[in-house]
């Protein structure tokens, strides 16, 4: 599973790290221990542990920039806005995909307001040969 922890700090596998006393995961003391523990949790797929360790580590070491970034990046999602205007072009693109995409199997396609702008074998080829208006749908046809 895990390929191990980067850096010199040795941390037990997260499977053996259980909440103690006040609910914190530990026992970790230094910022380096927290950073190593977050990395190990990510490598083991213990994503909730990674979030909690990053948050707790940053709380205890607010001056550490790496823990600050880890805590921000691993935090729960945050709603920014819920009032974006409707985009009727989505329905037109969906109709094109349903009716015409099968002719482009294995290709990347660019579709805008229900019209094919171009197709190519790779995404990079596609974006080099056409201008993409904002709202262009890029997708690979399987």
């Amino acid at each position, binding site marked *: *599973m*895990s*390929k191990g922890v980067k850096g010199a700090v040795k941390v037990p596998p997260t499977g053996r790290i259980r909440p103690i006393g006040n609910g914190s995961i530990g026992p970790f003391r230094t910022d380096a221990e927290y950073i190593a523990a977050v*990395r190990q949790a*990510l*490598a*083991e*797929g213990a*994503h*909730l542990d990674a*979030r909690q360790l990053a948050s707790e580590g940053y709380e205890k070491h607010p001056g550490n920039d*790496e823990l600050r*970034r*880890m805590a*921000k*990046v*691993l*935090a*729960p*999602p*945050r*709603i*920014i*806005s*819920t*009032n*974006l*205007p*409707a*985009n*009727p072009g*989505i*329905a037109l*693109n*969906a109709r094109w*995909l*349903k009716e015409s995409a099968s002719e482009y199997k294995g290709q990347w396609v660019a579709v805008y307001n229900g019209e094919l702008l171009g197709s190519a074998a*790779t*995404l*990079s080829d596609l*974006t080099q040969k056409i201008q*993409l208006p*904002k*709202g*262009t*749908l*890029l*997708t*690979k046809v*399987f």
Partner: protein
Amino acid sequence: MLLLPDGSEFCIGSTTCFSKPFSPRERLNKLLIQVTIGDLDVEAAIDTGGAYLILDPGIARLINLDSADLVGTEEIHVRGTITQGILYRIPLQIPSEEGMGTSIEVTAFVPTLLPNESWGLPTVLGWHCCLERIRFAVDPLNERFYFGSADN
């Protein structure tokens, strides 16, 4: 739109969804919707058993990801394998065909590819750190995806 028993709104927008395999090797249909990342609209698969927005590295190259909002290269356990890549905090929009769209700040994982290696999956919307603050409901026969903020 859909309402809760007390008459308040369950969701604020709806859009088309597709049920189809998302790679030639897939034997099962997945649920896909159109989302906006940066200035690009892409198809993304819903994976409630997954973590993060797994962003196709080819798409990631086309948008400006803010280096201030990244954690360095990490090994992440993704879809059963250890994958090297970079975690970012980025805005994701779920645009609507009817009603209002939603913008949400999520955690994106961009896999690091070897030279000449290609990413064989679409962009994937996982639950942890991505969809976990979004209410949604699916009408499979009419291919509608209803969504809204869970923070209401």
